[in-house]
């Protein structure tokens, strides 16, 4: 199981508390995680990546195992600690605005 930590507003939108656990085909990639997330929570489509281009929205970042994965290719394998569920994949909104 892959653990995903969503930002507050997306947890509210998906009506979940805490982390989300997802089954993702091996080897898990960022694209695979987001596909699984959006399949289970269709209301999140378009909120993390663009509906058409599937690119990450500019004010969101992906972090895992103390690394910034935001600019990694979406098809790159995720770190072993994420794949094994030892560490969560964290989706975070940029700190900006009022």
């Amino acid at each position, binding site marked *: 199981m892959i653990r995903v930590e969503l930002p507050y507003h997306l947890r509210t939108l998906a009506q979940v508390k805490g982390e989300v656990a997802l089954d993702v085909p091996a080897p898990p990639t960022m694209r695979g995680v987001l596909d699984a997330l959006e*399949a*289970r929570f269709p*209301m999140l489509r378009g909120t993390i990546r663009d509906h058409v281009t599937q690119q990450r*929205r500019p004010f*969101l970042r992906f972090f895992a195992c103390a690394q910034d994965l935001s600019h990694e290719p979406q098809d790159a394998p995720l770190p072993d600690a994420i794949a094994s569920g030892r560490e969560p994949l964290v989706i975070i909104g940029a700190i900006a605005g009022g």
Partner: protein
Amino acid sequence: MSKVRVLVGTHKGAFILTSDGKRKNWQVGGPFFAGWEIYHMKGSPLNPDRIYASQTSGWFGQIMQRSDDGGKTWAIPGGETVPVPGPEAAPPSNKFVYDVSPPSGKPLTTHQWYDGTQHPWEFKRVWHIEPSPAHSDTVYAGVEDAALFKSTDGGQSWHELAGLRGHGTGPHWQPGAGGMCLHTVILDPSDPDRIYIAISAAGAFRTDDGGKTWKPINKGLFSKYIPDPTAEVGHCVHHVAMNPGRPGVLFMQKHWDVMRSDDAGDNWTKISGNLPTDFGFVIDVHAHQPETIYVVPIKSDSEHYPLEGRLRVYRSRTGGNEWEELANGLPEKDCYVNVLRDAMAVDALDECGIYFGTTGGQVYVSPDGGDNWAPIVHDLPAVLSVEVQTIP
């Protein structure tokens, strides 16, 4: 006894204010969608329990919400959780994509950017929702960058009426300070094929064939801040209003100038008359007296607050030119708020109620057509939009 439900969109959530027909005692519901920008909410004329809301965020994009129980509970059409996803694709939701398909769409063209260069259309948010008076599952959405979308399945899937964005004048449209937004959608209740829209800063347009083709309706507008002040497009129209009982007569608050048209927008005449300033954003028409109109004069395009710190509504009972100041119950001094373009509404009770919201978080009501005003709430987040439903 009839009651009213006031739908308030703010910078940080939605609120629903309810009262009986006396409109003196109010209950405040919300915040709904707390922390999100709610650009607009509007109920179906056919089914008042059906309300749509545009929930948006610079971080997370556009969400469309719908309530079918008068705002008690909300759901994203097509966005319901799938506990065990199967192989089939989930239905569409929240998806606003410009139509570039050969059969029905237009190529993704460019519009004028702030610096005069050309810039591609980029979807940002829904500014205005207009449910159909004829079909409860049909609803229109005016969006930024300017385009008109339509849903015929209650807001689950949206399709662009691409003839508008594809109008040949598109390269001359440009964003106003708030972005290049399509902020006004007026459906003619007597003719389902006739729709009026307005864009800042392109102007007003009309279709007479259900949205396939569009005609700019800006003749008579004069905008000294554009190279050709009488150009076919390029005018910064802030809002347009129409009494549904008298289709074809339109009232407009332009960047500067208050205007009217008696021929469905083909020609406009200035009706600013004795207004102390004719800059402003809102304009609306009395529910039962189609020659009675309301504006909130704002000092100037550089200073977006009332003259001399005194918040005033102005009413004309003559369809313009002759205006009277309405002050009873409104702040007399030190008031430096704005009233944004979709933040005024009228109810349909026998004694017509007028409502408006401010960027200072106040929502005011006049239960007697503007003679007397009182705040319903004082301290909401900045108000982006106000709509009212009259519930039998």
